[in-house]
């Protein structure tokens, strides 16, 4: 079984990106299990003084361990001000400081939904760049940009309604399973 965790970049309850994340377990190919990561909402704002005095906060350690144990990680993130949402960047910044940082060589896939036409294209390229620094292995294609997401996702029922979007996500997850099988695993 391939174990994948999904990290949501939005803390908002009704988040479109959270809805997409919640749909993933049912869209995953056979042999891939997708679970939500431990929460990033309780992370303090990054400050090296904290790690140097009281050590890494428990939620940071929990996320780092979950990433380490996973065969792959999916980011489901909105775009804030053309970039990575601060809660998610804060989580990445914390985990990046954990000894033997867990993103090294880790297969990563990106998905984003936004109400605009680009569907979060810019946040994904920022995330890709951060993943270069962390030496992760980011899946190239297919990319998932859910543009005009209010028309493709029903906020009330918490479901993706657009069949084409569902099809794209299934395709990406299948490609991600292959990518993990080809390039994942410990060094």
């Amino acid at each position: 079984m391939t174990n994948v965790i999904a990290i949501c970049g939005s803390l908002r309850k009704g988040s479109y990106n959270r809805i997409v994340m919640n749909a993933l377990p049912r869209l995953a190919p056979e042999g891939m299990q997708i679970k939500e990561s431990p929460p990033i909402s309780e992370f303090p704002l990054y400050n090296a003084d904290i790690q140097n005095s009281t050590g890494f906060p428990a939620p940071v350690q929990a996320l780092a361990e979950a990433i380490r144990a996973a065969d792959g990680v999916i980011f489901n993130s909105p775009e804030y001000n053309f970039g990575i949402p601060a809660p998610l960047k804060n989580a990445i910044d914390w985990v990046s400081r954990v000894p033997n940082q867990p993103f090294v060589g880790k297969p990563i896939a990106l998905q984003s939904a936004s109400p605009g036409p680009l569907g979060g294209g810019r946040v994904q390229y920022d995330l890709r760049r951060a993943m270069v620094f962390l030496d992760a292995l980011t899946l190239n294609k297919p990319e998932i940009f859910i543009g005009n997401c209010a028309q493709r996702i029903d906020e009330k029922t918490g479901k993706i309604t657009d069949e084409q979007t569902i099809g794209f996500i299934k395709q990406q997850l299948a490609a991600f399973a292959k990518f993990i099988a080809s390039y994942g695993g410990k060094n």
Partner: protein
Amino acid sequence: MSDNQLNVIVICGSLRKGSYNASLARTLPALAPPGMAVKAAPGWDTMPVYNHDLHADGKFPAEVMAWGEAIRGADGVIIVSPEYNWSIPGGLKNAIDWVSRFKEVPFKEKPVALQSCAGGALGGARMQYHLRQCLTSIDALIFGKPEIFVSFSAKKFDEKTVELTDQPTIDIVKQQLLSFEKFIRRMNGRK
């Protein structure tokens, strides 16, 4: 030389004779670890400016074919390029655009490492991140770290011979080549 020595080609993004990037590219064979042989890729300087009409019959120009085949045949590719107007030089982009139209794109799942020299403080970083984006589109396996940004390059090469003389640069390039060898073996071993 062992039988499993990796065969890596280096593509230079500049045509200028006295180019720092060309000089760095020429230096790579001597800096490569024993497990890796680095050779220059065929030139892209005679490729026509990309036009779909030129291959509408399914036939690509000979120099495009040769470039694509060299990439296909290599275990890995290193691109050493200057930054033009904060981005990829047009000539190099032209070559990439050409081979991206092959039915089987030769960059697909090909390990690729990047290096750049520039006169300014960033050493070509903006070009490299544009190049990473293009290589994502053609599904290359892009090497992560260490990154090679040779900033203030005029100070790091001999004024007359254009030879790379800066020891810290030589050391980090050696490190990248060694890490790239490991990356290629890891990626290819798991295909």
